[in-house]
């Protein structure tokens, strides 16, 4: 009882939207710093002979007025897109480190604009973590802009709602699939050369009960994520801890390292929503 009261008090910290903005911004900033450095490490893929050559990609996008075409050519060509990546890195690092209101406002709005730009430019190769990061950046931008004008914003609640939508969609779709309910899908994913790991495939091979148990844990966890808001303090903490553990496991087994940061950046907003409901 005492522990639960202490936990309630600790979660009270997330009742302050400014705290939540800061926590979410730091997590998003770290995740985007890693993501952007990864893009910079393989920047040759953005030029001719790479997987995202603008010389080819430009043929598949609609024509725009001449002025816009010139801007797009400058920004999306090989030198321009690398410059945008450097700008994105600066915005991400500023967001992770800075505390001044004006600086974080500029950084988060710039980061949101750049993330949307990159989702246009990189037609292939965007993962769900990248999309979630865009949504977090949009929610944080809305909050930061409104805070500047000292008016209320739904930005942080938008982030929480989006996290619930992403988890619930994934869980419901898996529940509807016999391959997931019977544990077959998990074995397939672990066995992939691209996304699996030989040791994980060996571990799951021939262990149907383990596969079924893990599959159901993932499905139930994802479907019930939105319901965490209704649980008492230990419940919501347990759900978020399980979520974090799940993303860490996918980082280890599947190499999806940035999912951890992208989804963790939504958790402070989930806790803000929880405190609003349990006030």
């Amino acid at each position, binding site marked *: 009882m005492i522990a639960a009261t202490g936990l309630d008090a600790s979660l009270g910290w997330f009742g302050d939207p400014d705290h939540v903005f800061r926590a979410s911004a730091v997590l998003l900033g770290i995740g985007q710093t*890693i993501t952007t450095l*990864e*893009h910079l*490490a*393989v920047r040759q*893929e953005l030029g*001719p*002979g*790479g*997987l*995202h050559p603008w010389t*080819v*990609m430009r*043929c598949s996008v609609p024509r725009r007025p001449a002025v816009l075409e010139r801007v797009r050519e400058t920004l999306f060509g090989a030198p321009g897109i690398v410059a945008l990546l450097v700008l994105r890195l600066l915005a991400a690092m500023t967001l992770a480190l800075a505390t001044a209101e004006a600086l974080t406002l500029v950084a988060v709005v710039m980061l949101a604009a750049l993330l*949307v730009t990159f*989702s246009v430019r*990189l037609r*292939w*190769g*965007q993962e*769900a973590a990248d*999309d979630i990061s*865009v949504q977090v950046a*949009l929610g944080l931008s*809305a909050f930061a*802009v*409104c805070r500047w*004008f000292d*008016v*209320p914003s*739904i930005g942080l609640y*938008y982030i929480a709602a*989006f996290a619930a*939508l*992403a*988890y619930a*969609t*994934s869980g419901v*779709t*898996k529940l*509807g*699939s016999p391959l*997931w309910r019977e544990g077959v*899908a998990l074995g*397939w*994913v672990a*066995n*992939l*050369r*691209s996304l699996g*790991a*030989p040791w994980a*495939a060996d571990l799951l091979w021939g262990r149907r009960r383990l596969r079924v148990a893990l599959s159901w844990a993932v499905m139930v966890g994802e479907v019930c994520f939105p319901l965490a808001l209704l649980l008492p303090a230990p419940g919501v903490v347990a759900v978020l801890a399980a979520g974090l553990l799940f993303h*860490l496991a996918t*980082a*280890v*087994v599947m*190499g*999806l*390292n940035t999912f951890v940061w992208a989804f963790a950046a939504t958790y402070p907003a989930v806790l803000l929503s929880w405190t609003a409901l349990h006030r």
Partner: protein
Amino acid sequence: MGTAVSAITSAGLVALFVLSLRYQLHDRAELARRTSRLLLLRQYRLFAPIPGRSDLHLVVRDHDVDGAPRPCREVSMVPLRHWSQVLWNPQKRRWLPVRPLLVDLVRAGAALEDRPVAIELTTPYLVLLGVVGAEPADEDVRARQFLVVERYGHEPEESPRVLFCSAVHRLERTTAMAT
């Protein structure tokens, strides 16, 4: 001014959320029919309902001066799993686009089966042609083609299956290639 900012940002986020919610309800066939104009929309199905069981590999085959084909070799995209990838995984940025690119190419190949020249003008084809063209080549190699090969992960008993085979393209020594 502040009230207007609050109202506009709120309306924008609510609209985006409603559109995203609606987008989750589209089934696979519907998604294939209509591509979202708003690139912020995406389905969060994450390996559901049917996850990929196989890996798609990009394979090149060089041709000598006399036109004789050489053995196929894979364009290495997928790195071995390493613990450090939990924090830092730049190679992921190389293999993430490969599967959707290859899937789009195979789909285009099936749809334009009777028009091979049209396939060669699709974006995935041109991108992959550039990728294989940038791969190093021996001095006596004059032409190159690429294949999309499907393999069932680590299952040794399943033999690879060729899903797509490109035309043979003359290899320019400046690393660019022309048909």
